[in-house]
């Protein structure tokens, strides 16, 4: 019945104590809400705890043992994150609070400086609110226009429309790598080449791609690439803005304060070098160290293997979901064309009711608009139910999801 997988999932699961619990007596947890946030392995929890237990100190300025150790760990994590996405330099890796802050940084610093009224930012209908609202705010204040490339009925980006909408007025293409609702993986390199051919830059929201597959920002030829630690085994409160060095160098700072300056006089200040120019104030030190440990953990297992495992689990899920009458999957139906998540709608049953019944069976899924209201409205939906997978999910958990959905029908179908 079950497909083979390259990962030793039992061994991996032993690294995640939180997975070994019952939601109610005798009903074990099946955590299928990884697109919202992933669980954290002991290696990450221990790395953060070790910092607080042994060498908690502020970074960069202290001339004492603890501060030096903290700085080495904080900056060492940055270098490993740079290698993880194959950035040309660690100076291109800016620590932010999360994906959302990374996008806002680009909107405030790059777009406000470089764009003028009438310029166009080309986004899409499928974006997460974090890649829609900052541009709407910018447009409202500056006269810059935002246009949205539509999605097709089949649940993928309309590339014909994209080609038609891309002209020399477009100065930035901003797009998600893997859709957090449709699962669709966008042809980023093709889109980047097209954007560059009209002189536009490209920002890629990698929040749902970097955790699940190998990503090489140089091979993708993107100008900005943004993601969050907490969806890839790391802690909340830390994310990354990757930007090509010459672009970041030319950008003004985002926030002012300590650490982002070389010299301050009352008459004016001189900005620090990259990446510190964009990191005002005491950063999230423990979180950066935890992020580094997460990247080490993923690297050790291998992103190719993790991706293969998720494709196998997703293919199995799509096969089994097709058995459930009245259930419709959003987005492309081939596992090889999508990330490890499946959003679904089921007759007239509200997603909150589906999630509630599944919760009773120990299965954690997400119900709602997944911060993509325009996309749901495009398909005349108010909400959907999403199951999302990661390296520790098993084929048995998919079986339990299917059994749970039959239970939903039993309880709630009119």
């Amino acid at each position, binding site marked *: 019945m079950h497909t083979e997988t390259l990962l030793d999932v039992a061994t991996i699961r032993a690294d995640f104590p939180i997975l070994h619990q019952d939601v109610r007596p005798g009903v074990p947890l099946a955590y299928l809400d990884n697109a919202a946030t992933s669980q954290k392995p002991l290696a990450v929890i221990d790395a953060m705890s070790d910092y607080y237990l042994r060498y908690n100190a502020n970074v960069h300025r202290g001339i004492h043992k603890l501060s030096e150790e903290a700085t080495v760990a904080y900056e060492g994590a940055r270098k490993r994150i740079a290698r993880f996405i194959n950035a040309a330099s660690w100076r291109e890796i800016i620590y932010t609070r999360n994906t959302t802050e990374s996008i806002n940084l680009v909107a405030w610093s790059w777009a406000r400086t470089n764009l003028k009224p009438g310029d166009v930012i080309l986004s899409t209908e499928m974006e997460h609110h974090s890649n829609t609202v900052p541009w709407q705010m910018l447009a409202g204040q500056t006269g810059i226009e935002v246009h949205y490339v539509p999605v097709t009925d089949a649940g993928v980006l309309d590339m014909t429309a994209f080609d038609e909408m891309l002209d020399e007025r477009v100065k930035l293409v901003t797009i998600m790598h893997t859709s957090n609702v449709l699962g669709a993986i966008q042809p980023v390199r093709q889109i980047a080449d097209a954007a560059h051919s009209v002189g536009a830059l490209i920002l890629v929201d990698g929040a749902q791609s970097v955790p699940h597959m190998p990503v090489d920002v140089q091979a993708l030829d993107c100008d900005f690439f943004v993601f969050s630690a907490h969806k890839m085994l790391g802690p909340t409160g830390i994310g990354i803005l990757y930007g090509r060095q010459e672009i970041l160098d030319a950008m003004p700072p985002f926030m002012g304060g300590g650490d982002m300056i070389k010299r301050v006089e009352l008459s004016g200040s001189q900005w620090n070098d990259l990446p510190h120019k964009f990191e005002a104030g005491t950063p999230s030190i423990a979180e950066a160290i935890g992020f580094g440990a997460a990247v080490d953990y993923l690297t050790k297992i291998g992103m190719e293997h993790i991706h293969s495992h998720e494709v196998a689990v997703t293919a199995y899920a799509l096969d089994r979901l097709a058995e459930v009458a009245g259930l419709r999957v959003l987005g492309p139906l081939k596992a090889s064309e999508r990330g490890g998540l499946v959003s679904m709608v089921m007759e007239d049953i*509200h*997603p*909150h*009711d589906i999630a*509630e*019944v599944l919760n*009773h069976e120990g299965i954690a899924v997400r*119900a*709602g*608009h997944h911060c993509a209201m325009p996309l749901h409205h495009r398909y005349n939906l*108010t*909400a959907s139910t999403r199951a999302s997978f990661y390296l520790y999910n098993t084929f048995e958990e998919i079986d339990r999801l299917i059994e749970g959905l039959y*239970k939903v029908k039993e*309880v*709630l179908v*009119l």
Partner: protein
Amino acid sequence: MDDLYREMILDHYRNPQKKQLVSPADIDYAEDNPLCGDFIHLTIQLDENKVVKDVGWEGNGCAISQASASMLYETLIGKTLDEIRSIGKDDILEMLGVPLGPVRLKCALLSLKVLKAGAYGLHAWPGEEDE
């Protein structure tokens, strides 16, 4: 699922009471919960003594929000506006008779929120004013 989706709630969800708008309406108000898309439109007819003569509603959403609307609104007939004003969050919870977490609480209370907003212009979520 004998707790949250107990039979009375499922009965109202499957066979909602008074689920047809009345016209002309003395009170006519609609609102949705943008977080989950639950939607309720309520219409009420009053007699000369400000007593509810008839009530009707439309809506869509989860079982809890729709059952709550059906159960609450059918009890309004014959009540005065003053009596409606005194209906609170605890009355709804008692009426539903199931334990609700903080997220589902709003599903359960949307019907009361719509009622109070329509009758009195009170736009807060029931219970929040005394938190």
